[in-house]
């Protein structure tokens, strides 16, 4: 098991008041959260604020540049794509799809990985051996290749892309949960609960899980960001979410045909995606800092 994932020592949860103070002092975390909240809001409000139907094409009105160009107009503030669809509306709806991909993949892989990691860390022994074996096998499979092959065979609908990525990306959750749980298990109060005769499930859910939660969230942010990027890579190879769904990854890969001449077409979804990924990473890094025992600053 040599996948190096840094697992900081687990300590009893930071006191709430101190935690709040740390959060408020952490600039990265605050900025990241603000951007992320803005994107979520964009996604939620897309049906209400989009000026046009994101699927409505107008082939006589293609590649209209954004409003800050001479030929641009407020009718299409971000212009239109190569099929004459309103780019602002597609970008707004694209936020929905990209967030959906990131969050669903995180939840599916988080569920699998946490389950495996908890079981291995808590029970140890044979269970640990088996889980370690499963994790190692999973790590040996190249994610992009397997995802591509499966999507190519079964077809690239949104559901399948999410399922495939979710089933492939749980390894880091499992690794982190396993070692975090191992540490928690030997803590005094967990030992005490066990001695008091609490059921295994209860100990895991009530005592272990809350203590390893910070790690879980940090891993979750990393995985969500990487799922969004992976979908973009699949789209580039023609096997991600399929048209006409406006995922940011798909928009970027379709706009790449225009990147040498109409750079804005790729720059808009590209910067949206970059912002989202950066925001998620900033939140992850921030949470790592504020939950760590020797917090920075």
């Amino acid at each position: 098991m040599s996948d190096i994932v840094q697992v900081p020592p687990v300590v009893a949860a930071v006191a709430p008041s101190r935690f709040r103070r740390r959060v408020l002092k952490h600039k990265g975390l605050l900025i990241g959260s603000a951007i992320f909240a803005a994107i979520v809001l964009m996604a939620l409000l897309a049906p209400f604020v989009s000026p046009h139907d994101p699927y409505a094409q107008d082939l006589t009105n293609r590649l209209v540049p954004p409003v800050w160009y001479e030929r641009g107009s407020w009718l299409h503030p971000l212009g239109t794509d190569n099929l004459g669809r309103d780019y602002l509306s597609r970008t707004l709806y694209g936020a929905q799809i990209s967030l959906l991909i990131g969050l669903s993949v995180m939840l599916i892989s988080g569920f699998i990985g946490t389950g495996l990691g908890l079981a291995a860390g808590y029970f140890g022994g044979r269970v640990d051996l088996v889980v370690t074996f499963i994790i190692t096998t999973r790590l040996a499979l190249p994610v992009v290749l397997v995802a591509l092959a499966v999507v190519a065979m079964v077809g690239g609908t949104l559901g399948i892309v999410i399922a495939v990525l979710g089933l492939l990306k749980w390894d880091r959750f499992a690794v982190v949960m396993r070692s975090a749980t191992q540490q928690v298990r030997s803590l005094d109060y967990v030992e005490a609960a066990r001695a008091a005769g609490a059921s295994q499930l209860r100990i895991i859910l009530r005592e272990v899980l809350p203590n390893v939660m910070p790690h879980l969230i940090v891993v979750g942010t990393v995985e969500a960001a990487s799922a969004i990027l992976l979908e973009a890579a699949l789209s580039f190879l023609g096997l991600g979410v399929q048209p006409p769904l406006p995922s940011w990854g798909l928009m970027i890969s379709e706009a790449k045909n225009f990147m040498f001449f109409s750079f804005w077409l790729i720059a808009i979804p590209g910067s949206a995606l970059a912002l989202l990924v950066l925001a998620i990473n900033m939140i992850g890094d921030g949470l790592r800092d504020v939950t760590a025992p020797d917090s920075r600053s």
Partner: protein
Amino acid sequence: MTFFSTRWLFAAVLGLAMAAGLAAPAEAQKRQNTIRFAYDQVPENVDPFFNNVRIGVIIAHQVWDTLIYRDPKTNEYRGQLATAWRWIDEKTLELDLRRGVKFHNGAEFTADDVVFTLNFVANPANRSTTQSNVNWIDRAEKIDAHKVRIITKRPFPAAIEYLAGPIVIHPAAYYQQVGPKGMNEKPVGSGPYRVVDHQIGRSITLQRNPDYFRDGPKPQPQIERIVIRFIPDRQTQVAEMLSGGLDFIMNIAPDQAQQMRAVPTLQIVSGGTMRIVFLNFATTENSPAPQLRDVRVRRAIAHAIDRQTMARQLVGEGSQVINAICFPSQFGCDASQAPVYDFDLGKARALMAEAGFPNGFDIELHAYRERNQSEAMINYLRAIGIRATLRFGQYAAMRDQVRANRAAMAHQTWGSFSINDTSASTPVYYKGLDDDISRDPKVIELLERGDTVTDPQQRIAAYREAHRIIGEQVYSVPLYNLVTFYAASRDLEFAAYPDELPRFWEMRWK
């Protein structure tokens, strides 16, 4: 906001390019007399009988020769490996062969080569890829060293056209020894270029054949070397053109071609082609989408797609809407009796409701090229409630899906191997062959008659009736023909032809 300004960016990029001496590499190529050409698809086998991708056809005509040659400008037939030919009877074609022609391996060209090649590829057991190109041949016979007879299974008036198109002649002794597999690894033909290097899946290098026979219809080649590289990503190809790493590419997206006109080191040439586009439906009992078995649904789809606007906006100048599954210039492509479905969403919605699908249905659209056109069709279908998902892949993969009846709708394109006769187009999809996914017995019969009757008027009549039924039943929605855009370095002199075949043997530097 200047960051997003295209003009700013473009100026900056080009400015840098000038400073770095962008023109230098192209100049160097001119001195080395080499054309660097890139294509996105890899042929499964370079042997022209064992692939059906465009790059295969392109290579075929540089490396091999056909018996007859069709002048692309006048459409007149001239002798290439044959010098004269005559029909002995309805089913027997006699050809006199050219003397003094040598294959690249030094072997002399004789009647044996013609007889062996034709008999080999006409045998279905040898699995030549496009059966309709060869399955009209019953056998070939040697009369003497420079005279052969080809006996067709049925009267087949289009034979000359096929002998001038996809049917190249291999050296018999070599082909017998190595087969299609060896022919792929080390191709040997008699054409103006010979293959000096073939790295499967990566590149093919052609070198001028110094011993190419004179007085034939193809002139002596001027360019010393043609390096064909396989670059899967079109964007990378464009980048190579912009940076002077390639001298010639084709099939550029119309939008991009328009934008590339601004680049001073390049020339953009376009030409309408014989390649037609159509939306093909699986309508037999085992169709993966039973909804498509209802002709009203198919008519609704035909009314829902604005072909005229797609042709004008997405394909570009030179594209015409078609009403039958053939190219208008092909003999027998008579769509006068076929119905025309105008763009009318009201009619389309009414037909959908009538068929019992007022809320539409989900379906898959299989496609392999012109992805933006597939997407435009998907968007048109959305307007009448049909939610189509795109299945995009390589041609061979799509073909297999279609033939296995796993593709409900296929965004097909067909170049007819540049054969100017309807027997090369409509029958491929409607005469009960592998790609026929509607299998209408009446249409099969009519096409069979059109392919085999000798009287031209009767041929036309049979095809016309077939087109009428196909149109009324909407086994496909005929769309338009494609336009090919080429980008080449400014110094290269070349012409675009409707058959999408770059003729390297007649290109030269200005």
